[in-house]
């Protein structure tokens, strides 16, 4: 079920009437204590996930990956190789599940689409003048329309951080609404670029703003700004999703992206979801990991769990 803003409860429909109303709503949310949020995330990171639980977590994490290439040097060949990896992550082991999606620039979405046409794997395309978002709405809409026309099942848009930091919340809101309108049946992931928003209060407010405007997923980062995804930022966003669900009965997905490189990292994110939103979100439908090098690390750990031996980097494919 897509986030259909027309189903928002009446109490939330007029919060976006004016910038003042929207600001009042966002500032009425309870604050986030940074020390406390960091401490909670650090505590959850100590969960010890071993043996059968680890093996299950590895396969779950693989199935949640948005396998990503977002380089200026991307070519059709690179995207096709990535799609082959997405379908069959481990050349030696057919039991490894495919990843959730392949994430590319919009102009290469058609290449990915045709390479994945006979699979369940989604094509996600970044749009709206990714990663900076510094372009006119006209350009952003066109960017999005082209990506959709090229076969993108999911659009990863960036918010206008400049407008957000300047207090023009309604502009950010309206832009998301406009992009959503041209997405058609494609799911909309809204990238907050939390590394530029800096404070957890901002992260929480931007999460709510995006969900109210119609985001199907909220996503931490482009991967082009440091820090990208962190555990505490993800925790703050998961809490916002939980509260939005409690208020509206609408489920929003979550995608941390950038900097998630190891199996240990990935499992920490799964623990975070497990102990905030719970098992209903522990599916690729509602939780994604935006990553590129993570997949091979998961494959090597999976091999070790099943055989008791470590394999080397030469035994997993570089794509």
């Amino acid at each position, binding site marked *: 079920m897509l986030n259909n803003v027309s189903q928002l409860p009446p109490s939330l429909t007029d919060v976006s009437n004016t910038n003042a109303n929207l600001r009042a709503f966002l500032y009425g949310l*309870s*604050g*986030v*204590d940074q*020390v*406390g*949020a960091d*401490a*909670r995330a650090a505590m959850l990171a*100590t*969960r*010890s*996930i*071993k*043996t*059968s*639980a*680890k093996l*299950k*977590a590895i396969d*779950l994490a693989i199935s949640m990956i948005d396998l990503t290439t977002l380089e200026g040097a991307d070519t059709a060949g690179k995207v096709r190789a990535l799609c082959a990896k997405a379908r069959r992550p481990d050349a030696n082991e057919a039991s490894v599940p495919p990843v959730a999606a392949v994430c590319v620039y919009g102009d290469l979405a058609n290449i990915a689409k045709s390479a994945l046409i006979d699979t369940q794997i989604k094509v996600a395309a970044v749009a709206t003048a990714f990663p900076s978002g510094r372009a006119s709405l006209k350009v952003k809409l066109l960017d999005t329309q082209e990506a959709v026309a090229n076969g993108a099942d999911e659009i990863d848009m960036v918010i206008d951080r400049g407008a957000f930091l300047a207090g023009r919340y309604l502009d950010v809101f309206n832009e998301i609404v406009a992009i959503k309108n041209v997405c058609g049946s494609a799911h909309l992931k809204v990238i907050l670029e939390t590394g530029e928003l800096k404070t957890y209060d901002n992260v929480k407010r931007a999460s709510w703003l995006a969900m109210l405007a119609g985001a199907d997923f909220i996503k931490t980062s482009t991967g082009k700004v440091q820090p990208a995804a962190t555990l505490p930022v993800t925790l*703050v966003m998961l*809490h916002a999703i939980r509260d939005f669900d409690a208020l509206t009965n609408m489920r929003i997905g979550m995608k941390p992206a950038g900097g998630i490189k190891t199996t240990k990292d990935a499992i920490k994110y*799964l*623990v975070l979801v*497990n*102990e905030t939103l719970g*098992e209903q979100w*522990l*599916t690729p439908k509602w939780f994604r990991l935006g990553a590129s090098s993570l997949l091979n690390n998961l494959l090597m750990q999976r091999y070790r769990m099943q055989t008791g031996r470590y394999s080397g980097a030469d035994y997993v494919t570089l794509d």
Partner: protein
Amino acid sequence: MKFEYAPAPESTSIVNIKSKNDLFIDNEFISSKKGSRFITINPATEEVLAEITAATDDDVDLAVTAARKAFKSWAKLAGAERAKYLFRIARIIQDRAREIAVLETLNNGKPIRESRDVDIPLVAAHFFHYAGWADKLEYAGLGSNPKPHGVVGQIIPWNFPMLMLAWKIAPALAAGNTVVLKPAETTSLTALLFAEICQQADLPPGVVNIVTGAGDTGRAIVNHPDVNKIAFTGSTEVGRFIAQSIAGTKKKLTLELGGKAANIVFDDAPLDQTIEGIVNGIFFNQGHVCCAGSRLLVQESIHDELLSLLYQRLELLRVGDPLDKNTDVGAINSAAQLVKIQELAASGEAEGANRWSSSCQLPANGFWFPPTVFTNVSQSHRIAREEIFGPVLSVLTFRTPDEAIAKANNTPYGLSAGVWTEKGSRILEVTSKLKAGVVWANTFNKFDPTSPFGGYKESGYGREGGRQGLTAYLFAGENE
């Protein structure tokens, strides 16, 4: 997808528990001539771990004599030399941290995550901190020539066995005192391991003496004529008895007793972190914490929202095997304590409060009590006034800051309190009006060796930790 965590038990192979344990006097483990032995168990399984000696009056006399003999040279030793021993002890504690943590969890029932991540690191930190003080006593605020009291009798509780030992022994030794310490009868094992560490550190004989036993042993220490100071942490009832016993003697006394701390949540609090603070305040260490945030005072306008979040969160607490690295809440320390908790919880229901308990599965053996919250509690209920010392939270409401302060202070205790608000000026205003020794703002149950800890009113007197904690083991000598 359901994501169950597989069992992740910490291995116990690292600990080596002697089946019969002696007393540690004058750097030797010696058996008591007349003392009997009693068993000590793992409260999570009721499995017998070892036999412990109940030290008699004669044993205590031997320990005090050894401490007196050692005092002469220990107090004369240059501060920098005493510091070397304390630094050495601190480093050995870090080296053997996992062993100490496992033993603590086995004997106490607290989760390994807490003994590993909180208790034992703090133990080492206390020794490091006071090691640093040993050659700087003239800066303690007691003039240029502060003097140690002499032989100090120390009696500690079962809730943080090793940490309470560190709070007592580290400043006493840094100041130049020698000690006779009695651990609680249900949790003696880490104190005996500490005795081994004293041997390993080549601490001079008699500086630290550990005598195990129950109330009679404690009474023998308190009443021994050659003890100069008593330091006690435990119940207000026993503290009162000790104060009466030494009244009229020259003995100095510090007492760290019970508490019934108010954790005050204003309507502008950061809710998700407040929930963590509430959980940490009352379910940390199964609520066996004298400064536990056992009374939640929540502003009426956010009561329902906060409680609904709290119940959700409490259902996620992992209650069970304390040795499992993923356990959040462990076992109640003893059958007697469990009975006390059950009795007070029953009084809460009888007096008309509403009880909510986590639906967690409790293990069949051992002593267990589910995380429990009482709402609709009023100030007159026993569960709002008496220290439960268990995983039981009493929730009360208030409407204005003045009411919150009045209700928070309306208790015979005054050990700790907490304030949750995003407004800095309110933190300053409210904390300055709370009559409690420690007040936390937007956090709870955080400890640091540099920070003094202690109570108002029936929560005791004297401070532990920091410079203030050091002065409890010194008096102002004549200026040189």
